[in-house]
């Protein structure tokens, strides 16, 4: 629970550590896309790390990204085939960004290259970190989507542009930092 709160707050993968900015900025433009990316992230990321954990023990240390990336590529390919077979028209850019989940930091960061990545960690420990990161991403993603839709009322299509997205991210980042500072008793601004 403490770990989940940490990832929801000061390590949030949307507001604080921008690991999957392309997906956040593109996926929140419409409700359909938000749902699609939310479901795929929630399924693909924990499964990738669960399958990759035993294989990482087999590969040498310098090749630790190989099993993770390969499994992620296979899972995203399967997700893509499922979307195709279910008759959902996703569009070329959606598919390309879905594929980019394979290499996005969100997918790989917690287990492999991020600060706090622990070598030879236990399976339960790894899955706890991945679960917390994924849950925090989904919460941040949903919040970003709601803010963007609300901002679209006064600002129109501007909120869907890259500039609009970054301004929302800046405001969100400031809010999280201010809340963190207040909680630590240091006031809003230094």
């Amino acid at each position, binding site marked *: 629970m403490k770990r989940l709160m940490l990832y929801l707050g000061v390590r949030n993968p949307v507001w604080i550590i921008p690991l999957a*900015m*392309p997906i956040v900025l*593109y996926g929140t433009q419409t409700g359909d896309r938000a749902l699609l990316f939310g479901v795929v992230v929630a399924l693909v990321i924990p499964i990738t790390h669960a399958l990759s954990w035993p294989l990482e023990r087999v590969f040498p240390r310098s090749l630790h990204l*190989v099993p993770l990336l390969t499994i992620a590529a296979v899972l995203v*390919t399967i997700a893509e085939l499922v979307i195709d077979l279910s008759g959902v028209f996703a569009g070329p850019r959606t598919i390309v960004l879905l*594929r980019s989940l*394979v*290499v996005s930091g969100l997918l790989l960061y917690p287990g492999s290259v991020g600060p706090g990545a622990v070598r030879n960690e236990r399976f339960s420990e790894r899955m706890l970190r991945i679960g917390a990161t994924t849950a925090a991403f989904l919460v941040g993603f949903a919040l970003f989507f709601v803010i963007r839709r609300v901002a679209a009322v006064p600002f129109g299509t501007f909120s869907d542009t*890259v500039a609009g997205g970054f301004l929302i991210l800046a405001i969100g980042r400031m809010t999280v930092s201010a809340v963190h500072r207040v909680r630590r008793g240091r006031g809003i601004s230094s």
Partner: protein
Amino acid sequence: MSVIALFVTASLAQNVVLVHFFGVWPYPSVVYSPRRGAAVAGAVALVLVWVSTVYGVVHRLFLARFALEYLETLTLVLILLGTVYAVVRIAGLVAPYARAVPARYAPLLILNTTVFVVAMSIPESVERITFFPVAALGAGAGLFLALVPIAAIRRHLDRARIPGVLRGDVSAYIATALTALAIQQIDRLVLSVLEPLW
């Protein structure tokens, strides 16, 4: 399709940071200073040209010809991994005492969404194989054109007398928003001279 139109389209009209934001990782630290932004843009551009060309050729000659498009993601991942680990290995042989440097930056290059997305888009957007490196170089130039001004604006904001809450990552986001607005206007200017290809 002229080379100039292709280059301008890839670098400005379809800018990988300011129009689409395919993203470089880790973004706020990449735009920490203009020098670092230029170095990362140069390194990513080099990888981009090589990976896009190899992937484009494999895609055109094998995947598209034998209807194996569903293997695109896996193919690109294998090319990316093979390239980066080959570079690390060669660097280790050529300069054994400096081999830690490429090994440290290998994940950064592998995990860059820009490399992945641009390489994947090029075979569908560009008609001739010989133009693949030009399109990739254009995307790399677009990365440079975005990262260096953003880093300069960020540095300026960090040194200005502004509230503390606006410094750090927030200044990077504000700098990106400002540069993205600027490129929209530059795009309109270019559009009056040259029609983008896609």
